[in-house]
């Protein structure tokens, strides 16, 4: 009778590590491609999918307006412009990069990872923060946090 379970030898572990690395590295490829597009275009005029509905309809800035321009500025090494365009999103992208690095490190080491998860209370707190941020950046005082055109 053939065994139904294969023993976990070195080859199995290697395959598992490759599989574990596949999704973060694939995600990095997608993000790198998107960043290249932003580097070349500056985050302007990317078509209807990259147009903010709120900004197009009312002229107001939504909490995420300027995100693409922030990444574009960052790809050119212009940190002040990037922070001007959208500081909170830039900060969150930094957090995402740390989470990504942790995941790659765990996958390369063949360790099981539990991704950090944002629960309902934290989501509500973040939403409240972004709401205040959105109101502030639309006031005359908040111009320094509004996107550069």
């Amino acid at each position, binding site marked *: 009778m053939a065994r139904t379970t294969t023993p976990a030898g070195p080859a199995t572990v290697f395959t598992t590590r490759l599989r574990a690395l596949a*999704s973060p590295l694939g995600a990095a490829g997608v993000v790198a491609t998107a960043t290249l597009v932003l580097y070349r275009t500056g985050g302007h005029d990317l078509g209807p*999918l990259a147009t*903010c*509905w*709120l900004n197009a309809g009312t002229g107001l800035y*939504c*909490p*995420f*307006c300027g*995100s693409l321009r922030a990444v574009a500025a960052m790809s050119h090494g212009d940190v002040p412009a990037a922070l001007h365009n959208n500081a909170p999103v830039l900060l969150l992208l930094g957090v995402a990069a740390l989470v990504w690095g942790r995941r790659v490190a765990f996958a390369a080491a063949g360790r099981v990872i*539990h*991704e*950090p*998860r*944002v*629960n*309902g209370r934290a*989501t509500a707190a973040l939403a409240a923060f972004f709401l205040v941020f959105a109101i502030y950046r639309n006031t005359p005082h908040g111009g320094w946090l509004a996107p550069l055109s």
Partner: protein
Amino acid sequence: MSDYGTPPPPPPPPPGGFQQPGYGQAPTGAPLAVWIQRVGAYLLDYVLIVPFSILQVVFSPKTVTTNVNGVVNTTQSGGNLSIAFLMAGLGLAVWFFNRCYLGGQGQSFGKKVLGLTLIGERTGQPIGMGRAFLRDLAHFVDAIICYVGYLFPLWDQKRQTLADKIMTTVVTSKA
């Protein structure tokens, strides 16, 4: 070992009692679908109506501008507006049947292909046609904030979009 006489001991009950679903689990005990699976299912649902969209564009009359040696001429190309409307209607009907009727029973076409199921967060049961329709309308909230709502399953504890939160639904994957 050929000892078939003693059955294996039953698995120990999950910690924390039976009421509380485990980490990354729905009330039914099935694991929650991850973001990329849900993207795939949505794209498959979309592929279903792409032929109708193409035919709608093909049959729509179009404004043709010709410029022959500086003489600009604008004409309306032939087309069939009623067929274009029919195609738009058929596309909507297919979307509604797939996303709302089948989705309300738990699995739209894309979800069935990828082994995902849409259930109520508290009931663990399919949500029915009406609530599935409202959930698709609630996707407006996901889109209005620069599509960030569609990204929520990447970090949310229950892997819900904002539409899922509004309708209190979760999407589960095969165990």
